[in-house]
């Protein structure tokens, strides 16, 4: 499985650093513009995008509170209205509760939407996580650095990131607000070492944090808002133009078939009705309406007091066509008896056998043979029965 992990490089979210892993083995990293990621990421892969923690507001939730998500949202909105600089309604609120994490995350809707839109172009499976979750999974209280950002993760799952310029100010604030914050520091930095003298310092690569996250990320809050986006699903399931054309053709066929068949059936039915009326008009031009054709034709026949002919077609005429062979010099057909006498002159014996074998298929039965065979030629007469 190909996995791509993306970090922001600058405050603008366009410049990103892309780490590529295949089956948990690091392959490469490159810097690129987010608009170009579809050139590097395949649709059958997983993409992890890390939102800088400074772009979100995370709030620990009381695990003991049994409020539903809507009530929690309402409470957060009222509590945080004064703290959030932007209009609170412009933020997407994610409530995430499980046995390991009880957290609310607020992120600007338009920012998240623009990231999501750009990631959808890849057609890959998308995960969007706050950046501090990388170190949170390694050690809940921790600090590490990506690009120029120092990323703080707190034990409740909250987190923040700050650049080097404002690091000291932020550290003062953290120490004031969170007196018991004793993080594990995953980098060598003098300011951090001075501020957290009791903390353990461990140099850890971002790749090992990535691999740790890949294995454990499923309980984290995924900030990707899925939904029905045709272009994404087309790309995701690698639907090409031919597939689309076939699908459209199949659907069109399902719609067009009943409509066209109904139209044709109706037009043929009308044609039959018109022809039926026309037959009545030929019999009697004064007939104005045909309501029940069967009853009406029966009435006409009864009015003429006619004897019904049992059979109006001459049986055996088709058989005569089949017996149009030069060696059959004479054919005498008795219509009433449905029999025919054939006179043969010099018909090849194989040809004769072939003729006899074919007779049942032509509804003919051999009744009597009076034949002589000379030099492989058959002459004489046969009597055949004609069946309908």
């Amino acid at each position: 499985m190909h996995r791509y992990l993306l970090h922001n490089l600058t405050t603008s979210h366009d410049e990103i650093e892309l780490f590529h892993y295949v089956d948990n083995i690091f392959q490469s990293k490159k810097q690129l513009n987010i608009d170009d990621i579809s050139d590097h990421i395949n649709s059958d892969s997983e993409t992890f995008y890390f939102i800088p923690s400074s772009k979100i507001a995370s709030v620990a939730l009381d695990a003991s509170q049994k409020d539903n998500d809507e009530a929690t949202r309402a409470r957060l909105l009222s509590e945080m209205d004064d703290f959030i600089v932007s209009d609170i309604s412009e933020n997407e609120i994610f409530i995430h509760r499980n046995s390991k994490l009880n957290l609310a995350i607020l992120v600007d809707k338009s920012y998240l939407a623009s990231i999501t839109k750009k990631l959808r172009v890849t057609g890959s499976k998308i995960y969007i996580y706050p950046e501090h979750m990388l170190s949170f999974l390694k050690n809940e209280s921790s600090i590490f650095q990506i690009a120029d950002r120092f990323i703080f993760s707190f034990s409740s799952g909250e987190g923040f990131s700050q650049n080097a310029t404002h690091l000291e100010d932020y550290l003062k604030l953290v120490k004031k607000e969170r007196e018991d914050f004793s993080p594990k520091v995953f980098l060598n930095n003098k300011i951090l070492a001075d501020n957290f003298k009791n903390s353990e310092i461990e140099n850890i690569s971002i790749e090992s944090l990535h691999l740790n996250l890949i294995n454990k990320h499923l309980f984290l809050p995924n900030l990707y808002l899925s939904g029905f986006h045709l272009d994404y699903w087309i790309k995701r399931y690698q639907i090409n133009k031919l597939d689309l054309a076939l699908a459209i053709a199949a659907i069109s066929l399902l719609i067009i078939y009943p409509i066209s068949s109904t139209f044709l059936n109706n037009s043929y039915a009308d044609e039959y009705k018109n022809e039926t009326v026309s037959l009545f008009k030929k019999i009697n031009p004064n007939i104005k309406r045909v309501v029940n054709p069967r009853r009406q034709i029966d009435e006409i026949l009864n009015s003429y007091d006619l004897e019904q002919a049992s059979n109006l077609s001459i049986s055996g005429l088709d058989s005569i066509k089949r017996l149009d062979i030069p060696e059959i010099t004479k054919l005498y057909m008795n219509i009433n008896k449905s029999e025919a006498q054939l006179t043969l002159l010099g018909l090849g014996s194989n040809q004769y056998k072939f003729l006899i074998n074919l007779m049942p298929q032509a509804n003919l039965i051999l009744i009597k043979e009076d034949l002589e065979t000379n030099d492989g030629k058959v002459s004489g007469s046969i009597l055949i029965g004609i069946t309908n």
Partner: protein
Amino acid sequence: MKEIFNNLQSREKSLLVILSAIVILGIILSSGTNLYSNLQESSQRLNSAKSDYDYVYSQAEVLSFNLAQQSFLLNAETAYATLDIMAKDYELINYVLTKNKSELKMVYILNDLERSLLFIEDSVKIIGIMPLSIEVSRLNEIKRFTVIFNTN
């Protein structure tokens, strides 16, 4: 519209999406059922119209046959004249019509078998009587036909 939808809460969005899906599915199902039930109805209508036509046609043939027979028995000369005209149309060679009290005998030569059999069928329609026998004698490609009708 999109903005109004985006400003809704996720629960409201989900409900709206589910409702829309149900409505769309309902419309598709109803239209599909309607289309295919119309097709079935039209098919039944066609079968009924065809069956009526076939019945009327067959009864009209009976009527025509009987009327032709009655007409021939009343006025055979007209029928013979019609047969003569038809024989010319079919380009029959050596066409001879022999009549006696109980029999009508037609003899002619025509190499085209198919056409010859059509002539016999048309003759039956004119006189309204089925032939007793048909004889085809062949010498190389020349075919001589003898058709006998019982006029009793």
